């Protein structure tokens, strides 16, 4: 329990602007959704990590809860221009989930219950920068915010932090996801304002 990174965030705030370009600060937590909210009973929930060779690693809900937990406090930036600072989460680091997974893949395609997908480089899931988060602000993550569990990759625009996360496929070649096939950026760094293809 308890790997927190407020120091990292604090340094950022002291040394530069708290908000990426084009963003405004919000205190509430807007609900964005591209479809109906899936209802996933915890008994049926599972998370599947698949590699480029077809190997699969699965976790049930109790198994996820049995893994080492972290409590990141992070700033989040939505491509629709709101940012929210100092959000508190609990979840399992992707470093933990990827530990022992043998792969030569460089890309990841994230899948959600309900059919949503998003892509990002595998490296961005490593290094203490990505979690499967199940608790927000001390309570179980509400369904409208992606519960039972969502991906949390706060250094990229928030559409990469897929709600209702169900699994991740590791890929040799990059494969664009739901918004990335409709004009949005393949990487989505808010500090470089990579909103749309070509930005």
């Amino acid at each position, binding site marked *: 329990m308890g790997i927190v990174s407020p120091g990292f965030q604090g340094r950022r705030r002291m040394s530069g602007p708290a908000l990426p370009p084009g963003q405004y600060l919000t205190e509430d937590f*807007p*609900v*964005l*959704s*591209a*479809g*109906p*909210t899936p*209802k996933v009973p915890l008994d049926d929930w599972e998370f599947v990590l698949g590699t480029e060779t077809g190997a699969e690693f699965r976790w049930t809900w109790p198994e996820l809860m049995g893994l080492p937990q972290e409590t990141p406090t992070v700033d989040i930036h939505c*491509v*629709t221009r709101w940012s929210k600072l100092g959000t508190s989460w609990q979840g399992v680091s992707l470093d933990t989930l990827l530990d022992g997974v043998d792969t030569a893949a460089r890309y990841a395609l994230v899948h959600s219950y309900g*059919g949503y997908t998003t892509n990002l480089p595998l490296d961005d899931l490593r290094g203490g920068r990505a979690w499967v988060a199940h608790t927000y602000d001390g309570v179980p993550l509400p369904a409208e915010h992606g519960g039972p569990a969502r991906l949390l990759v706060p250094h990229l625009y928030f*559409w990469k932090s897929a709600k209702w996360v169900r699994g991740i496929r590791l890929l040799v070649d990059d494969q664009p996801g739901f*918004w990335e*096939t*409709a*004009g*949005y950026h393949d990487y989505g760094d808010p500090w470089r304002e990579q*909103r*749309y293809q070509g930005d």
Partner: protein
Amino acid sequence: MTDMSYLDGNMLDGPLRELFAVDLSAATGRCQSCGMVAPVARLHVYSHAPGLVARCPACTEVMLRLVRAPDRAWLDLRGATFLQVPMPLEGRRPADPAGTRPVGGDRRGGRGGTG
């Protein structure tokens, strides 16, 4: 399960009018996923999102997506096998020489012909 988080397809009228000269509010579309033919106005449109996502009212699969950047737009219709758009009868277009054909007698709907 009720879901009040979407709007009906009438809200696509304005955004699509930016791209097309035809009035799509009276169009119908066929869902690629389940085959249902539905008026565009009956699609379920999720607009609290980075773009507009219009879903089939029967199976909830995506039929149309529209993303608007400041200087560009992307329209994705892969979830719709067709869009059927009502057109004025050939030879009866308002641009025809005046008086050669009667206009509007067999038009359906209140919006046709009013431009």
